[in-house]
């Protein structure tokens, strides 16, 4: 048998179409394209929101109009035309379902194709799913179980109606409307998202999860997530994404706000597998996300992400370590292939005393992709005994891709202890040879080595996600022999 060469692999990879590229035909109610004050009002009205929310959105819109798109990131793309996007689309079968059987069967079939059928999920994992298809929450499960514990887990539009006091108190406290261009846009036009509140001292018994999907052609998705962990509580939140294959670029500008009050802990995990565009770099999702968490005294926020999709990723899940003894963690794997571009990393802002942060970032670039780590570790003058450890490793496959590291470290306190290290390398020929010798073919060997390279991060994912993530890594990297 002839040797399975690099070229064979590359060829195979090229022809490998996006597995989840299909399109659900649900009658959608879509707003006309374009954005102005009336559209913002209309979105708010459609969602039957109270006046304060409408005002809040309008305020954000006003700020957004004055802002310009940021250009500092190490990515190149055609700027989206914000007047050519429809800012609201909802699946037509709008009424709430009491049971899963009432959900549009076509939609259920979609999820089944993704391998995450609600039924299966319900039975298998004990995961409560707040399924978001095109911005409106259509199914919420396990609500009862959670309700008994006093946990509120619902779509944010419901929360605005049912728990306005909580939403009003916390929304925009971590990511203010005028934080950045995309956060402002999101604040003005967010269509839906998830809201979660864990009461004092409650340990959430199950992993909470949401699936986002961009479904309707030409609709931007503007999710807003707000997670509040009250004193002494614990929650693990999962977010996973797959999007259908679309040729025009789709924009995703989500905002995620986490608030961990005293002694609380939030674990936020993401697996992102949006359509990355085809082998020529055509199409794909633009992912411009603002994620930030605030830690009060003794609180802990842990971000874990596996980024394999999107044509352009621009994402920096951050922790503001405001309280004393608070802890921030960031574990990330970013994989780019073909013409994908990723500029991702984290910010750890140490404000309180004895705060600790850990950053583990693994970047894997293949094809003609560009993968950048951009991170900030900031120690304020009052942050006594702050501690940070950062590690950024990059793996390059082929000589047409790039790996970049831009760590910013700013220390203003003499007791700070900061360590940063970064390495860039390729998969060693000797490692592959070792595997080949033992009868493991090159492709499997690469999967094995990449898995080992990413292990530190994969281990941090909840079980349900770890399996999927591992599979994703293999799919995204097949055929990219170094």
């Amino acid at each position, binding site marked *: 048998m002839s040797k399975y060469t690099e070229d064979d692999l590359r060829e195979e990879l090229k022809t490998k179409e996006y597995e989840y590229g299909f399109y659900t035909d649900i009658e959608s109610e879509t707003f006309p394209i374009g954005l102005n004050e009336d559209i913002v009002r209309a979105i708010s009205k459609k969602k039957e929101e109270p006046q304060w929310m409408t005002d809040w959105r309008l305020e954000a819109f006003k700020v957004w109009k004055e802002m310009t798109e940021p250009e500092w990131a190490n990515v190149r793309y055609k700027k989206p035309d914000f007047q050519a996007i429809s800012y609201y689309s909802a699946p037509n079968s709008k009424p709430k379902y009491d049971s899963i059987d009432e959900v549009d069967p076509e939609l259920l079939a979609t999820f089944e194709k993704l391998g995450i059928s609600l039924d299966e999920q319900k039975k298998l994992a004990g995961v409560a799913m707040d399924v978001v298809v095109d911005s409106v929450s259509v199914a919420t499960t396990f609500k009862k179980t959670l309700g008994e514990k006093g946990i509120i887990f619902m779509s944010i539009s419901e929360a605005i109606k049912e728990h306005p006091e909580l939403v009003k108190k916390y929304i925009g406290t971590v990511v203010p409307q005028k934080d950045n261009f995309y956060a402002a846009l999101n604040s003005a036009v967010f269509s839906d998202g998830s809201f979660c509140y864990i009461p004092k001292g409650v340990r959430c018994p199950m992993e909470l999860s949401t699936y986002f999907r961009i479904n309707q052609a030409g609709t931007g998705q503007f999710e807003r997530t707000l997670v509040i962990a009250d004193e002494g509580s614990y929650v693990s939140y999962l977010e996973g994404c797959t999007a259908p294959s679309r040729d025009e670029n789709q924009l995703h500008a989500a905002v995620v706000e986490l608030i961990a009050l005293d002694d609380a802990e939030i674990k936020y995990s993401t697996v992102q597998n949006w359509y990355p565009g085809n082998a020529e770099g055509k199409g794909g999702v633009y992912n411009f996300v603002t994620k930030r968490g605030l830690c009060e005294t003794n609180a802990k926020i842990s971000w874990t992400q596996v980024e394999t999709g999107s044509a352009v990723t621009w994402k920096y899940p951050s922790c503001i370590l405001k309280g004393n003894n608070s802890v921030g963690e960031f574990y990330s794997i970013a994989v780019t292939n073909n013409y994908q571009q990723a500029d991702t990393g984290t910010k750890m802002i140490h404000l309180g005393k004895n705060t600790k942060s850990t950053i583990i970032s693994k970047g894997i670039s293949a094809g003609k992709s560009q993968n950048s780590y951009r991170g900030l570790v900031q120690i304020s003058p009052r942050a006594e005994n702050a501690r940070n450890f950062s590690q950024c490793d990059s793996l390059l496959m082929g000589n047409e891709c790039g790996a970049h*590291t831009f760590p910013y470290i700013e220390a203003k306190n*003499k007791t700070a*202890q900061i360590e940063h290290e970064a390495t860039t390398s390729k998969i060693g020929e000797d490692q592959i040879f070792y595997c080949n010798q033992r009868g493991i073919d090159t492709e499997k060997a690469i999967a094995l080595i990449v898995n080992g390279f990413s292990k530190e991060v994969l281990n941090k994912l909840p079980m349900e996600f770890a399996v999927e993530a591992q599979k994703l890594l293999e799919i995204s990297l097949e055929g990219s022999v170094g």
Partner: protein
Amino acid sequence: MDLKEKLVSSFLAFENRVDVETPIHDVRSEAIKTFEAKGFPTKKDEDWKYTSLKSVLKSDFSVFPKQENAIEYTDVKKYFIHDIDSYKIIFIDGKYSSHLSQTTHDGIDVCLMSAALTKPKYRLVIENYFNKIATKDSLSSLNTAFSQEGAYIHIPKNKLVEKPIQILHFSTGNEAALMLQPRNLVVVDENAHVQIIERHQSLTDNPVLTNSVTEIFANKRAIVDYYKIQNDNKNASLIDNTFINQKRESHVSVHTFSFGGQLTRNNLNFYQNGERIDSTMKGITIIGEKQHVDHNTLVHHIEPNCESHQDYKGIFGDNATGVFNGKVVVEKEAQKTNAFQANNNILLSDKASINTKPQLEIFADDVKCSHGCTIGQLDESAMFYMRSRGIPQKEAKALLMYAFSNNVLSSVKIPELKQRITKIIATKLGVNIGFDL
């Protein structure tokens, strides 16, 4: 009138004093236009995010010193590495001092830029090398526009220069505030070897701003060791732009010792145009008060099988600020590159701060690139060990800090210079020990 306007308008006066009919002057005219368009960098420029020139630029600098000033050797002897024989190129307020200098044309050229720019026998070298690698950023352009004086060093093929070359710039303080723009050119031909020590020294507390550009060309298998001593007065600021172009198998090392000055900015750029090149850049920074030192390094790996090593140590006390901005770029063709970058810092005071940004931009896959960066304190247990053996706190601390920076000193190849640096470190740390334990 702000400094930018003043500089642009004084360019006309400058033109009256130099020969404007040469190709060099076209380069100058082009450069002043670039500077006029770009102006001084501000904090909005990513490369100047942590360093503001604002406070430095507000003095009313005189651009051309009015008169020639002389100083006695005995007054400034301490600024020389005087216990070794060396070539010396000395400038006082930007003017060449033949009285203090010791230049040569015997086999090698160790002389002046002003001579090189005007005399026909240097024409070929100037045409081939002058302003060929200096970037077109605003400060380098400003220097190019006013380039007239500085050191010119040309070492021909197979020549090993026995004595180091010292370049010293003194400012006497006869002007209320003085801006200097020395321009140096170092060309080292095949197989040649040279050692150069550069120092800028202000003799009074009057403000001095030096915007220096040095271009170094290391041809095939050349070896260049360049040492920069920066231990100036508290009102002296230095913007040092150094550009190094390396050909195959050449070895260039630049050591920067920053112990003082109001603001020091080192732009150190290495371009590796050939295979099997070795580039080393190391630095020790020990500052206090309100001093500011910014190291901005770039290593551009263009061809395969090259190495680069960076090692910068910083100790910051009082209200001092340190910046390290290191960038390693590995081009697609530069396979088998081995690039290493380390930046270690110690903060001694609550008001001191350090901003560091070690960047890697890598486009080749078969490379070994790593960087490490730490910010921390002195090891408590090591302190305790020494204290328990009767070493006083101050000395123990100094020993630890010396040990911390010793990695950089160990690669200094001139023993007398090493001793001198050790002495400066001891003074800086306020102890009277030799560290030769």
